[in-house]
């Protein structure tokens, strides 16, 4: 059977599965819609968090990015996993103990202020829309390459599916489809990785194959990482495993970006909200551990895939005759994601670190998707990867859409505009806003704003500079006041936004010398976070302490919930 037939079969099967789950987990209460009735087991929530968190970027783009960055790819690996330690230790158990439905709701109540809640709503919606546009685009790319339909048709198909299970099942539907999507995406990631690892090194476990010797070809007997360093030297590129050599990011920037990604992860509302769905604070701690176990499975595989893909790609293409290039090369060339320009007219593909001699441009995004074809794995594996990419994109999109919907229906409509609304009416509003959010997200998927890639840094920077500090201080310092929190959030956001907008849109040619302390816009969220902490602390100290009922709330969320001890 051809790749196309396999893809229709496997993608069709997984979609049917998601729809089935959505149908069986319909909800009739706001608690079910917003937090899945708080009855999700820690392991299931761990898987759901894994799928929720690992987006099209993690599944499709990350290994490709690492394969072009070498050591520096650690910013994603450490940054996007280290954040879970912060979540588990500093936030998840306390937010669960608080036990209401949204992150802005916690902010509003802890800081006894509708203004603070509104600022939080704005941040939550902005962060989520930024993110979701990228997911819809990922869905479109997978559809167009593997199902050979128009990108727009792909986006509409994905939208229809998310629409169905988000409006029917709310958080409950999303949770159990995410569990299924985690399983699909991890299987789709591990099977080709193991097959490639086994082919190249004789060891089927990628985490070990990555440190093993190459079994055949021109570099047989060499350690894989030694071979790739040697290949890079020959091509005039910086060594793959080298850390802070010229041509790679400076140490200060690596530190800042890693910190911004970690803290940003811990401040993303769609991740935080997952921990509201488990039964207790204790379950929230265990759930964070399971989440990182499930995420770690993909994240420790990704750098191995990156290395295999890098070696494979260079060995297959560098020095090959263009006329005899393998079929996957021609397929991807059609999408414009691989480009070959025969500068010296010899009909041979030359890959080089020297821009004047290099003839091959490879988009980072295709490394994972093309990898099974490059390694000549069977057609069903290629199809499985397509289903995995869709699972990753759809699960994240659904989680984000729920944040948007609950922020509007619960934090704005119910809390500010129509407080007298019944639960049934609120549920209706929640379904409508979820549906509307899907449409807006789909619009951005079909007409992507040119700046999607640039604003991803924005989402993390903003989450790091807005939510993280005031959530942590809200739990760990009862003295933090509403004036402090509002001033802190605003200064963190404004500083981070101004820095990113300036360097992304106005002074695009600027380099490390122009940056503050050599910190790139991707890493500036960590400075924004420190600023937020400092401003919140100083202003809180200067303003009168929070009222007694708020201090009592802080005392209460610090202690785990034990119904029998009450």
């Amino acid at each position, binding site marked *: 059977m051809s790749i196309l037939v396999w893809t229709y079969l496997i993608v069709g099967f997984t979609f049917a599965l998601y729809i089935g789950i959505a149908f069986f987990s319909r909800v009739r209460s706001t608690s079910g819609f917003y937090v899945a009735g708080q009855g999700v087991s820690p392991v299931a929530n761990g898987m759901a968090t894994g799928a929720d968190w690992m987006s099209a970027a993690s599944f499709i783009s990350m290994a490709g990015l690492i394969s072009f960055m070498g050591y520096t790819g650690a910013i994603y*690996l*450490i940054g996007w996993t*280290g954040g879970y*330690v912060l979540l588990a230790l500093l936030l998840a158990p306390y937010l669960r103990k608080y036990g209401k439905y949204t992150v802005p709701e916690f902010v509003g109540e802890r800081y006894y202020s509708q203004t603070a809640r509104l600022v939080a709503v704005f941040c939550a919606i902005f962060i989520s829309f930024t993110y979701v546009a990228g997911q819809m685009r990922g869905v479109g790319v997978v559809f167009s390459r593997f199902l050979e339909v128009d990108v727009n048709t792909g986006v509409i198909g994905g939208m229809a599916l998310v629409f169905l299970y988000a409006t029917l099942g709310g958080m409950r539907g999303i949770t159990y489809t995410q569990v299924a999507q985690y399983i699909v995406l991890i299987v789709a990631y591990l099977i080709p990785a193991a097959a490639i690892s086994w082919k190249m090194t004789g060891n089927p476990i990628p985490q070990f194959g990555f440190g*093993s010797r190459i079994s055949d070809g021109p570099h047989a007997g060499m350690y894989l990482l030694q071979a790739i360093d040697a290949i890079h030297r020959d091509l005039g590129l910086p060594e793959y495993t080298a850390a802070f050599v010229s041509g790679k990011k400076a140490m200060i920037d690596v530190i800042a970006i890693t910190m911004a990604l970690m803290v940003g992860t811990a401040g993303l509302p769609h991740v935080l909200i997952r921990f509201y769905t488990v039964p207790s604070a204790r379950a929230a701690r265990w759930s*964070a551990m399971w989440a990182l176990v499930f995420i770690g499975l993909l994240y*420790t595989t990704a750098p191995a895939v990156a290395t295999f893909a890098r070696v494979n790609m260079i060995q297959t293409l560098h020095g090959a005759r263009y006329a005899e290039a393998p079929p996957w090369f021609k397929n991807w060339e059609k999408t414009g994601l691989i480009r070959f320009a025969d500068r010296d007219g010899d009909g041979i593909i030359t890959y080089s670190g020297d821009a004047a001699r290099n003839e091959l441009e490879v988009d980072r995004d295709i490394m994972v998707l093309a990898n099974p074809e490059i390694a000549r794995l069977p057609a069903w594996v290629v199809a499985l990867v397509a289903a995995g990419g869709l699972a990753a994109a759809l699960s994240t999109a659904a989680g984000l859409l729920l944040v948007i919907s609950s922020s509007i229906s619960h934090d704005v409509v119910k809390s500010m505009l129509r407080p007298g609304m019944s639960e049934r009416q609120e549920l209706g509003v929640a379904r409508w806003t979820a549906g509307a959010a899907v449409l807006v997200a789909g619009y951005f998927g079909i007409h992507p704003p040119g700046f999607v890639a640039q604003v991803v840094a924005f989402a993390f920077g903003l989450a790091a500079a807005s939510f993280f500090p005031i959530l942590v201080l809200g739990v760990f310092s009862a003295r933090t006041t509403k004036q402090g929190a509002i001033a802190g959030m605003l200064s963190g956001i404004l500083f981070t936004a101004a820095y990113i907008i300036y360097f992304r849109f106005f002074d695009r040619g600027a380099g490390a010398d122009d940056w503050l302390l050599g910190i790139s816009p991707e890493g500036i969220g960590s400075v924004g976070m420190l600023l937020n902490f400092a401003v919140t602390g100083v202003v809180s100290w200067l303003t009168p302490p929070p009222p007694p009922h708020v201090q009592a709330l802080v005392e209460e969320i610090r202690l785990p919930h034990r119904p029998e001890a009450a």
Partner: protein
Amino acid sequence: MTRKPVDGARYWRANLRILGNLLLIWLFTAFGLGILLVEVLNRFHVAGFPLGFWFAQQGAIYIFIVLIFVYARWMDRIDKRFYGD
């Protein structure tokens, strides 16, 4: 049902102690082993891995998982001590 009241302040101090220690290890893992010391550690090799590179792309993640495991385990014990089963 009556129980002896839980000493919230002591519970919180016990939590902060374990939390602080684990965060120090977290900080050292992420920024020490993975970034600041990477070039020093790269002089050593384990199988085909330069050690610093291994920590940056593999080891740190395993350590993070262990840190959360230890925290969840330890807090279960503290919960038990203060609240009983």
